[in-house]
């Protein structure tokens, strides 16, 4: 009998990576909750609610960055529309959170507030079952997967690649954003979903719920990392990299790139959907601006800053860029766009391998000197 998948995945990690994942999980699941709950707020080591929300949010972004890296760094396909999958996952889970509000909304109705506002009398058909956690959890995975599969099938079959593919993903996400902005679409229009009260019956604002969500996000991030590590080291990953570097040659050898690309593309969308579903309860809002062109391009810069084609890179990139964003938007809001714009230029011009590449270069330089 073969070993369970998770052991095979773990065995694909080297010792250092295993140590890293274990340390990460120990901090996220052990240290952070203790520092948050046990220490008084005035203590220097206290982890505030703000910090937990921020870190939880960034971990969701890190999952998205990993998903992006799988298709861009390893598949050579740059998507400028990954926001759509993130938002679809978020909206799917948001439906559940809206139903969990129950009659505690401002209109005390069984329907979500925005539907009462629109004078709707019953839930639209696609909201069927949205009060069931399991069904919604299924939607979080299936909806992004379906959209990605259909779109990817036609795009890859027509051998659309490079800039064209990027542009079309952008158009798709832009169209979806316009669609979700409409009130008639049934997802809250401009304002999206917000004012959540409960998740699985527990208050969404309590420290414990926040810590659980934080822990789950950390777990999913670690799992995604381990899974991605295993995937890119597998035979599938090798073929994928080969397609990235010389698609025509891979075809001549006898592989059909369509299914390889389609699989990684759909997988990436699913990971984004899950990240979106984890993001919404922690941040407390989902609206169509998550699908804006700018947001989707920012995902690419997280990956580029960290270093694409590595797996630790996107995680580092997501943390660095988003922590910088939090700091800038509080301290120097008018300079954030200058910084972000420069980051785009500097990273593409000077650091094509990102921070991870820079790290390796510095290490090599140091090694050569000694």
């Amino acid at each position, binding site marked *: 009998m073969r070993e369970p998948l998770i052991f095979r995945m773990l065995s694909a990690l080297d010792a250092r990576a295993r140590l890293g994942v274990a340390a990460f999980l120990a901090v996220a699941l052990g240290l952070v909750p203790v520092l948050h709950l046990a220490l008084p707020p005035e203590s220097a080591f206290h982890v505030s609610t703000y910090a937990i929300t921020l870190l939880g949010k960034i971990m969701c972004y890190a999952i998205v960055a990993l998903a992006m890296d799988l298709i*861009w760094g390893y598949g050579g396909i*740059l998507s*400028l529309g990954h926001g759509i999958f993130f938002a679809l996952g978020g909206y799917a889970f948001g439906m559940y959170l809206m139903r969990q509000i129950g009659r505690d909304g401002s209109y005390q109705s069984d329907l979500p507030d925005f539907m009462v506002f629109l004078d709707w009398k019953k839930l639209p058909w696609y909201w069927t079952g949205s009060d069931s956690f399991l069904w919604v959890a299924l939607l979080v995975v299936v909806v992004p997967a379906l959209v990605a599969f259909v*779109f990817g099938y*036609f*795009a890859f*079959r*027509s*051998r*659309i690649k*490079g*800039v*064209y593919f*990027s*542009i*079309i993903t*952008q*158009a*798709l996400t*832009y*169209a979806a954003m*316009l*669609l979700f*902005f*409409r009130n008639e679409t049934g997802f809250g229009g401009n304002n999206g979903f917000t004012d959540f009260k409960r998740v699985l019956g527990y208050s969404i604002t309590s420290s414990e719920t926040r810590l659980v969500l934080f822990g789950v996000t950390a777990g999913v991030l670690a799992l995604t990392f381990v899974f991605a590590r295993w995937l890119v080291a597998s035979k599938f990953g090798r073929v994928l990299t080969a397609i990235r570097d010389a*698609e*025509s040659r891979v075809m001549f050898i006898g592989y059909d790139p369509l299914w390889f690309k389609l699989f990684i593309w759909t997988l990436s969308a699913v990971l984004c959907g899950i990240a979106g579903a984890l993001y919404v309860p922690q941040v407390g809002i989902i609206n169509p601006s998550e699908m804006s*062109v*700018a947001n989707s*391009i920012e995902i*690419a*810069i997280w990956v*580029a800053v960290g270093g694409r084609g590595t797996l630790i890179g996107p995680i580092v990139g997501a943390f660095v860029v988003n922590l910088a964003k939090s700091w800038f938007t509080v301290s120097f809001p*008018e*300079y954030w*766009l*200058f910084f*972000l*714009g*420069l*980051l*785009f*230029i500097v*990273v*593409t*011009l000077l650091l*094509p391998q990102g921070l991870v590449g820079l790290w390796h270069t510095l290490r090599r330089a140091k090694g050569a000197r000694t």
Partner: protein
Amino acid sequence: MFKSLLALLLLACALTARAAPDPALVRQLADDDSSVKVAAIQKLTQTGDPDTVRILQAMADDALALAGGKVLIVDGDKAFDAATGAPVKAPENPESITVNNRIRGELANALAALKLFDADPAVRLDSAQKLQSKVSAEMSPLLAKALEKETDAKIKALLTLSHAQANLANADPAARLAAVRALSGSSSPSVKSLLQPLTEKAGEADSKVRYAAISAVKSIDGRLSMTENLGRVFSGLSLGSILLLGALGLAITYGVMGIINMAHGELLMIGAYSAYATQSLFRAYLPDAIDWYLPAAIPLAFFGAALVGVVMERTVIRWLYGRTLETLLATWGLSLILIQAARVLFGAQNVEVANPSWMSGGIELMPNLLLPWNRIIIIGFALFVLALMWVLMNRTRLGMFVRAVTQNRAMAGCVGVPTSRIDTLAFALGAGIAGLGGLALSQISNVGPDMGQGYIVDAVMVVVLGGVGQLAGAVWAALGLGVFAKLLEGWAGAVIAKIVVLVFIIIFIQKRPQGLFALKGRFVD
């Protein structure tokens, strides 16, 4: 003064033999009963006789008196017979005619109505406009008479409408029916709203008239929707020309270098802000020539955007050749910097760019089809830029080099085309044209730091749809998308139309990845 003029007028009237107003009616003006007076005023007005003007005017001026069973116009120590205009001896003790407020109002209306026969078209127009709100069935003959004499088309249209309205208020169903039939040939929305109440039982008791009204409204609707569609095609062309101005520059740079410049929208923004800057300069230094700031802004928009383009190309884009995906990201970074720079320089709010006076107004083709001048001028401007581009690409040495690099960069380089200089020049040209597009945009949409982001997706779609390397592709794609979007907008609303267009492009690209027009040739990657 007025009275001596009146005397002259009276003299003239007396000299010319004309049908004088009915003396019996005139006599009624002096009746004790106000209602009789009002009826007389109305009847006199309906004749449209110019003589009535002086009688009613005299009545309004309290210059009318009754003496010896005759109504006289008293002017100082002179007096005239009101009905005939013949001078009579001033009466010893004339009986004055009471003019109460009700009659005063009636007189004012009557005099206004009679102005329809004034010699001055401006007075007639004014009167026709004022009448519209108080048309009654009794006015029908008066309006008919005025209509008969009227020569000015605009006044005539107003009168026709009022006349029909008067007839529709007639108590006789046959008259109403005739009026409805006469109106069914119209194509004006105001006629439709006039007929609308008659299509319902509450508004029209006679079923025959009602059915006629229903079918009239239907046929007007048909004509209205035709002109509406014409209007949509026009606004589609105008949208298309804007898309074209936005996409032309992008098409050149994409053709030559194979990169999509995500900062292209910000080059549009630079063009729009140069219109704003020129306008501010004109306001400060040349307020008399403010109407001409726009032509003066053309070189600034072109060279300003081109300069930014050159800087972008020299500092960033040239180092990324062959790495098209990274170029997307780097140019996006440039666009963020340009947006923030515009915010710092001009403020985060939209700035106000006014249309020059010669661009306001429009040509009214049909009652509900107005072609605004600013749209027409933008279509013309787009054609002008397109013609300029065509000449540049097909008739100059630079154009030849650009085409050569587009078709085969390596081979062009081999035969001595300075490819890297051509890249810079082509990029500057594309940027400059984007600047001109922004200038045009400043006349019809908001000018603000974020304005470019709204156009980049559209512009890129045009390029992708049109195919690479040929102007014709961009032209057809831009105009086609513009008209398609506007026609759809009429049926499904703006947002759905936009979504459908995007989805259409996505599907189209699956079928024809090379776009509408592809360069012939064999390529391998």
